[in-house]
C-alpha cells in the first residue's frame, strides 16, 4: 500500500468538516425529502443526518456539533459522539466530506 495516498479525511472531534462543492445538500421539493447530490448519485440522508450535515459549515467543530445535539436531545454524549463521527466518516470515505481550509478557523 505504500505510495498510495489515502485521499479522504479522518473525522475526529477536532475536525471542522464541510460538504465539498460536488456534494450538495438540498431539500427536494417534489419528493419532500432532503437529498445529497453527488457525482451521478443521489443520497437520501435521514432526518438526524440532515441535522448534523446542516451544522457542518466548516467553522463549527465536530465537538461543538456533538455538544449541541447532546443538549438538544438530552442524550448521553458518548453515544451521540460515536454515531455522529461514524456517519461523518462514512460520508468522508465516499469523498463527500472535506475538512475546512485553514483560513476558515
Amino acid at each position, binding site marked *: 500500500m505504500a505510495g498510495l495516498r*489515502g485521499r479522504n479525511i479522518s473525522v475526529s472531534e477536532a475536525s471542522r468538516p464541510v460538504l465539498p462543492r460536488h456534494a450538495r445538500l438540498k431539500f427536494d421539493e417534489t419528493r419532500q425529502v432532503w437529498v445529497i447530490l453527488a457525482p451521478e*448519485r443521489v*443520497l437520501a440522508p435521514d432526518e438526524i443526518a440532515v441535522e448534523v450535515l446542516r451544522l457542518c459549515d466548516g467553522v463549527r467543530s465536530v465537538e461543538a456539533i456533538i455538544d449541541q445535539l447532546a443538549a438538544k436531545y438530552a442524550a448521553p454524549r458518548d453515544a451521540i459522539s460515536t454515531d455522529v463521527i461514524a456517519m461523518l466518516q462514512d460520508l468522508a470515505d465516499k469523498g463527500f466530506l472535506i475538512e475546512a481550509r485553514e483560513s476558515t478557523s
Partner: protein
Amino acid sequence: MSPTLTDANQVVADPSDGIAALERRGSVAETFGIPLAVLAELTHRCPLQCPYCSNPIELERGAVELTTAEWKKVLSELAEIGVLQIHFSGGEPTARKDLVELVQHATDVGLYSNLITSAVLLTRDKLAALAEAGLSHVQISFQGSEPVVADRVAGFKDAHAKKLDAAKWTRELDLPLTVNAVMHRQNLFQLPDIIQMAVDLDADRLEVANVQYYGWALKNRAALMPTLEQIEATSRIVEDSQVRLKGILAIDYVVPDYYALRPKKCMGGWGRQFFNISPAGKILPCHAAETITGLEFESVRSNHSIAWIWQNSEAFNRYRGTGWMPEPCASCAFKEIDFGGCRCQAFALTGDAGNTDPACALSPLHGQIFKLAEQEASGDNSRFVYRNFAGGTLETGGDHGA
C-alpha cells in the same frame, strides 16, 4: 430520544438505487415518479469514431439539434417536475458552442450537472468556464491505457494524450473525476494498467464497462466480443482492485451479459426511473431505444409536456412494469428484480423486443447466444467499422481511421 445515524447515509451505487432509497421512504417516486437524473444527448456530432458507440446507427445531424433556447426550456421544465441531476452527454457535448451557457442555465434552475465527455475538444480555459458555470463532475472516456491501442479504437490521432491533459485539468480545478473505460476483446489486456492510470490521474471513480451490444457495437460484435477466459480474468482483477484500492478509487463494473446467467436490470426497468433526450429532442426510455423499430417516440417539440410523455406515451408504457411480460418472465420470481432484462437486446437478438432477453439463462435462446459469443470471440475478425454519419467506415491497415 437517542439519535441514531446508522441509516443516515444511504449512499447508493447509482441514481437508480437512489430511487430505491427514496421509495423506501414512501415518496412519490414509488410508482414511476419522475426520474432523479436525466441524460441529455446534446449532439450526435463527435470527433471520435469508437466502434462501440452507444448512439444509434442513424445519427441525428447538426441541423435538427435543439437550439440553445429549446435546451434551456427543457432544462427548466426538468427542474420544475423534480429531476435533480442532468448528465450532459452526446455525441460529444463540448462540440456544442453553447455548452457553458447550458451548464449555467442548469445551475440557475437548480440542477446538478455532470459532463460525460471524450475530452478531446476541451481546453483548460473551457473547463474552467464550465466549472465557473457550476459544473459539478466530469466523466472522461478512455479507450485504452496508452496511445497505440487507445487512438486506434477512438479512430482519432492523439486522442489519448488530450484525454490525459483534460483529466489533469479536471483535478487541478478541484472537480471530481470519473474515468470511464469501455472494455472489449482488443483492450481487456490493458485493464490493470487502466486501473493504475485512474489512480495516477487522481480519479474518484472508475467505470469498467464491458461493451453492450446494440447499434454500432452490434455491427462490431465480432471484433469486440471478449473470450470467456478474458471475462473471468477481468472479474478477478476488478474484485482484487476493489479491495486493494478501497478509499482510494471506487470501481464500478459492468459485466458483458452474453456470458451472464441472469439478465441485467436494464435502465432499472423500462420507463421506471430513467429517460434520455436525443439531440433533436426525442424522449427515449434508454439511449439505444431507437434501435427497436416500430416504436414511436415523442419529442419535446410536440405539444406534450415532458411529464406527459414520461407518464402517458405509448413507447414508455409498452414495456413498463411487468404486465407486458410473456413466459418464462411472467411467472418468474425475478421479474421485479431484473424487469425482464433489456428490451433492445431482446429485439437485436430475437427480432421482438417483447421476448425474454436472451442474456437470461431461462430464455430458450440463451445457449445459442452463449455459443455465438464464444465463436465470435475466438474468430480472427479484429477490424473495426468506425462510427460516423456515413453509416460506418471499415478500418483499413494502419490508418487508425483518423
